[in-house]
């Protein structure tokens, strides 16, 4: 009965949406950042398996001959003997591998004293890092959107409590909350994972980061609804007798999508950097799992394994590779968010 009446006004937003898409696609920086982030996604999810298939080993294999006698790792583009047994002479000195033993290629060399492939670990680390970023954003959106809608739409006491809580939490440096929560929840939450697809520890880090960063989208949603709740289209819905929940669902949620999109792209990058921070402090994903954070942490040391001394047997390159990976993804996500904003609100440069 109402189908026809509701369909008619719906044609207009779709047209606006198409205009936005057009603006987005005609922006060179937007397309470039989209392509860059797509490449990051491809490299982190498919790159590891593909490279493993080509060179014949994976990121967990340890090659004792990928390090020299001082345990310093092999350099960029080196062929490493695949022998897993180290030959020792009678004084326990390491002997060179037998002549003609098969070798395997390490594109970026070995990752440290353990002799794993740095290139595959950087690629695999991307998987965990991107997963942390994306899951954390989903979790914080799940927390923020309902709470923000309640606070912004109904106002009053709910709003007062939510706003006060937000203010208190945001006044305090986020990293301290994260460290405190992570340390106390590690025994219960860290083992959760799903094989190599979602490494153990990723859900915990994503959950905590998502929960503690949800205050920012909460404020965004609340602010947006505060301005929208007295709009004429909301009044008209109210006049025909729509309930508050229905107004939020049907009239107001679509208006939140652009805001959330702009926020989400930056937030994925932010959360990836937070993961790096947690790993460097030593409370994030366990250090044997490759993420960009743990790869950096093994060169910087953590609070439990402190100081520059923790970086023994690592060269500057071991800092540089994960950094490049982080830079590409964070810069592209940042630019992506900026381009979303420009496409959605072209009048605000």
């Amino acid at each position, binding site marked *: 009965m109402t189908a026809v009446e509701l369909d008619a006004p719906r044609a207009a937003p779709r047209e606006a949406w198409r205009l936005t898409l057009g603006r987005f696609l005609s922006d060179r920086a937007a397309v470039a950042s989209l392509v860059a982030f797509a490449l990051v996604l491809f490299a982190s999810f498919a790159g590891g398996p593909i490279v493993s298939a080509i060179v014949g080993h994976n990121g967990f294999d340890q090659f004792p001959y990928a390090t020299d006698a001082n345990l310093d790792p092999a350099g960029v583009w080196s062929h490493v003997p695949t022998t897993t047994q180290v030959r020792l002479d009678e004084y326990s000195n390491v002997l060179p591998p037998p002549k003609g033993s098969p070798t395997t290629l390490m594109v970026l060399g070995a990752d440290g004293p353990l002799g794993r492939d740095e290139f595959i670990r950087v690629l695999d680390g991307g998987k965990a890092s991107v997963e942390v970023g994306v899951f954390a954003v989903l979790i914080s959106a799940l927390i923020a959107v309902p709470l923000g809608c309640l606070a912004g739409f109904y106002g009053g006491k709910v709003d007062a409590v939510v706003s006060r809580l937000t203010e208190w939490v945001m006044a305090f*440096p986020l990293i301290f909350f994260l*460290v405190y929560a992570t340390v106390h929840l590690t025994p219960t939450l860290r083992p959760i994972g799903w094989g190599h697809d979602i490494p153990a520890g990723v859900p915990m880090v994503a959950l905590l980061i998502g929960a503690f960063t949800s205050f920012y989208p909460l404020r965004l949603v609340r602010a947006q609804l505060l301005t929208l709740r007295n709009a004429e289209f909301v009044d008209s819905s109210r006049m025909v007798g729509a309930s508050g929940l229905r107004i939020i669902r049907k009239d107001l949620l679509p208006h939140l999508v652009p805001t959330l999109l702009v926020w989400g792209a930056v937030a994925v990058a932010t959360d990836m950097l937070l993961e790096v921070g947690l790993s*460097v*402090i030593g409370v994030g994903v366990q250090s044997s799992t490759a993420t960009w954070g743990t790869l950096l942490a093994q060169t910087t040391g953590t609070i439990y394994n402190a100081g520059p001394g923790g970086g023994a047997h690592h060269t500057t390159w071991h800092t540089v590779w994960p950094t490049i990976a982080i830079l590409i993804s964070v810069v592209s996500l940042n630019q992506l968010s900026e381009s979303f904003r420009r496409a959605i609100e072209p009048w605000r440069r």
Partner: protein
Amino acid sequence: MRRIGLFMARRIAGGVLTLWAIVTLTWLMYWSLSPQPGRFVYPLGIKVTPYQLQDGARRLGAARPKLTQYGDWWWHLLHGNFGHQWSFASLNDNVLTTVPIAPTLYPALRATLCILIGGAILAVVISLPLGAISGRRVGSLADKVISFVALIGVCTHPIVTGKLLTQWFGIDLKWLPAGGYCTFVKHPTPAGYPPGYESCGGPVAWTTHLIMPWFTFAFLFLALYTRMIRASVAESIHEDYVRTARAKGARERRVMALHVLPNASLRVLTMVGMDIGTALGVAVFVEFAYGISGLARLSVNAMAGDPSAEATDLPMLLAVVTVIALIVVIGNLVVDTLYAVVDPRTGAADRPGRTKEIAAGVM
């Protein structure tokens, strides 16, 4: 003037309330996690009997009624005293020796404040000309280069900046000390040290040790400030009063310094106030990269607790939480007051909000 007084009184009341809330929440959270303070008294790693746990708690004063402890804590705080920490407690001849918190806390606080304030000044000093250059001609080559460098700055984790700077300027080129901290005032060498030893200190050593931390800190915030100043300059460069200033023959530099940039100062002030919390989070990584034992590192250690004891040092935790909350509250108070003084129109109550961007990621 009366308005500012009233406003400050309200803000101070709000700050005290925030402090109370944070301390009380920490307190409640600690006691709700079934803690075992007794573990700090008896040697770790040895199987501790329930009796020993009770005895340890009693000796630390953690077995008294909770409300008494809570009241005592505030009483101590009013005297500027944070009591004794539980870590490093040692039981000899039935006498418990504990380490006071203040001698650790105050030097750490001084080191962190030096990093924070110096870094903030550096960030503002560098971003003012950069923002002015790129805001004057939006879209020019200089604008693009500056924006790109700023973007890289905000996307690089401070631990990476720190690590690379240490490696290049500290270890490879040996231009600057690779890490550590020296006090501004040179203290006499403590008794009992071997003859060749000299305590590090003095203005020169202080500066050389802090240059890289300051840059690391500023590199991150540079982007946010440059972008904001750029927007402000680009907005006001076409205003009538700027044209008037030019028409009366003022030189370009004078126009920028006296007519265009003061507009941005209000926003810079607002941002500095809102970034204090973030900055403390960033300080963790700056201190970590340069091996400085400052407040932020002390806090992370206190939050993370002692992994071998699986226990949290409550007095230390409360001390760092209080100091951090105080820094944030006092910093905001100072900024708000300055704001009210600089721009009496707005009365500071309704300062403009700002979108908090990627720097939130590392805090």
